């Protein structure tokens, strides 16, 4: 990933620290950032970064200005940033908020309020309403750590460096976390212990009235801890339990304790038994169909942690805070280390529900007389529509993340899809699937390009959640009918093999498409004559 770091103060030292992990460009000299972003031939534009950080030092920018002057300066800067963001819409531009300190000495009564100007900066940035502009909370870093630690007078007077070495380390750490978040690789699931983790004390010994979980004092440490874990769950992180307890003792707390923030519904899996925890974690990974390396294990007991670390080295096992007063804040650390998401879609929010419905489907399958019986009794409903603006983030996400049921594996950004939407020769379709156990959400996406009386399917993908149910037959039927209505006579499409999409190697053959050609890379092109397409058996109902 190529990144650029721009600032109105000297950030050579920050760029240098980032250079270990990324390709970094920082303009020579300082306060040249306006030139760099406005000039097409600047070093910045030649470097062509993917991500541009603009670290704004509020102190040197605004402190000596009168309020009105500050607003003018701001408007100019925002204007430059806006133009750059518009011109380079595929780049991510991360602009910091500002910390402004007024160095003037004043008598007590004259209260220096710099928050107004700090807030206006953020409002102006937000009002640009640009998808590729993100705000970096520099102010929070400074507040959490303190100006004395973050800034350096010596650095400033001697070298135009606003931040201390400690401050730079903290900023570099934040920037790295954000860049990692853009790359992906976040974890998916937290497996939690119960005793002395979600509540104080041991339920088996102390009883439901003896454990520490309340609104006040010691008990509220654990309640706050649960609240922050719930925040993660609400972002799409799956929560599971692995606890050595009698099931009845523990479930009583989870179901009935008045201060339990996390309820039974919040957990995708509860392994409350006397088995070794590593066995439970393996089962959880299997049940959820996720890798062990997507799991973070949290337990107050060092012995349990060491045991899981040894048996399952792929699982992340962070150290548990020694002081329970640190629990709630620790979850922020966990977010930074494992769950730094840039954005959360509707689908992400409902992940827990979806995994639970999947469990129910598995049970139904086990109870069905045949696979066809199972499919029919699912009562599946398929809805397909032309891509709308609000579908774009999910559709782009699908093109980037779907590997198995993906015939051509073309990756698109939101910007790419918006361009296609504006082009009448393209038809983009989104589909959602629901059944009697729940809604799988938007899980189908197709890109079709029309050229006279032939249509080309550039992309056909489905989330692996709905694979193996003949939904694809129904989707392709629908698209063929749509194309027929538009006067298309033939459809052409492709299979481009990857390491992960072997399962759809013969998809088009099975759907009745003819092979036209195959090259030495294994890429196959297909064609179907819409006058002669086969009749396919479907198990879903098409709804409007």
């Amino acid at each position: 990933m190529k990144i650029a770091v721009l600032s109105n103060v000297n950030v050579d030292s920050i760029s240098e620290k980032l250079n270990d992990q990324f390709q970094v460009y920082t303009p020579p000299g300082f306060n040249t950032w306006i030139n760099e972003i406005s000039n097409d031939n600047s070093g910045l534009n030649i470097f062509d970064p993917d991500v541009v950080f603009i670290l704004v030092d509020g102190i040197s920018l605004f402190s000596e200005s009168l309020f009105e002057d500050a607003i003018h300066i701001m408007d100019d800067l925002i204007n430059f940033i806006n133009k750059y963001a518009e011109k380079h819409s595929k780049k991510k531009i991360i602009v910091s908020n500002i910390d402004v300190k007024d160095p003037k000495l004043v008598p007590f009564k004259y209260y220096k309020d710099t928050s107004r100007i700090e807030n206006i900066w953020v409002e102006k940035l937000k009002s640009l309403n640009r998808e590729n502009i993100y705000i970096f909370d520099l102010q929070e870093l400074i507040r959490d750590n303190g100006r004395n630690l973050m800034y350096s007078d010596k650095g400033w007077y001697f070298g135009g460096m606003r931040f201390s070495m400690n401050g730079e380390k903290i900023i570099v750490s934040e920037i790295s976390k954000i860049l990692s978040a853009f790359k992906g690789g976040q974890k998916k699931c937290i497996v939690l212990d119960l005793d002395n983790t979600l509540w104080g004390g041991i339920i088996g010994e102390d009883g439901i009235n003896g454990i520490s979980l309340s609104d006040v004092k010691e008990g509220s440490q654990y309640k706050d801890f649960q609240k922050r874990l719930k925040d993660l769950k609400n972002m799409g992180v799956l929560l599971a339990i692995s606890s050595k307890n009698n099931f009845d003792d523990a479930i009583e707390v989870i179901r009935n304790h008045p201060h339990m923030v996390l309820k039974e519904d919040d957990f995708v899996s509860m392994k409350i038994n006397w088995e070794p925890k590593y066995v439970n974690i393996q089962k959880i990974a299997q049940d959820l169909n996720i890798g062990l390396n997507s799991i973070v294990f949290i337990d107050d007991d060092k012995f349990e942690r060491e045991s899981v670390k040894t048996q399952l080295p792929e699982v992340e096992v962070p150290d548990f805070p020694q002081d329970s007063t640190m629990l709630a804040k620790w979850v922020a650390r966990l977010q930074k280390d494992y769950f730094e998401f840039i954005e959360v879609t509707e689908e992400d929010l409902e992940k827990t529900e979806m995994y639970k419905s999947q469990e129910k489907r598995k049970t139904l399958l086990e109870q069905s007389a045949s696979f066809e019986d199972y499919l029919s009794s699912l009562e599946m409903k398929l809805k397909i529509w032309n891509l709308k603006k609000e579908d774009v983030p999910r559709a782009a996400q699908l093109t980037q993340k779907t590997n198995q049921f993906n015939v051509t594996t073309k990756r698109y950004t939101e910007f790419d899809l918006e361009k296609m939407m504006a082009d009448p020769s393209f038809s983009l379709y989104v589909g959602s699937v629901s059944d009697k156990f729940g809604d799988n959400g938007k899980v189908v996406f197709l890109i079709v390009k029309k050229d006279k009386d032939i249509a080309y399917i550039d992309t056909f993908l489905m989330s692996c959640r709905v694979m193996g149910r003949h939904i694809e037959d129904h989707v392709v039927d629908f698209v063929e009918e749509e194309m027929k209505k538009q006067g298309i006579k033939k459809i052409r499409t492709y299979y481009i093999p990857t390491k992960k999409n072997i399962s759809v190697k013969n998809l088009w053959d099975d759907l009745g498409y003819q092979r036209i050609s195959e090259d030495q890379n294994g890429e196959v092109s297909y064609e179907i004559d819409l006058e002669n397409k086969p009749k396919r058996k479907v198990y879903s109902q098409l709804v409007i």
Partner: protein
Amino acid sequence: MTTKEAIINTISDILKRQVDENTVKDEIQEWDSLKHLQIIMEIEEQFNVVIPIEDLSKINSVKDILNILRIS
């Protein structure tokens, strides 16, 4: 690790090369003015000391830094 060793390690980390107590600034290509400032700032922050800005130009070697911190 003694304080002396810690300081030498800190300087080595910043210069990205191993130095010892006899290393002189002029001998090391990497030890430019930016690195010089970084070294001073890092020492101040890590060891909780103040090195007056007037002394920066008088510091030209690892030994100078140890002396200013009164470490023999």
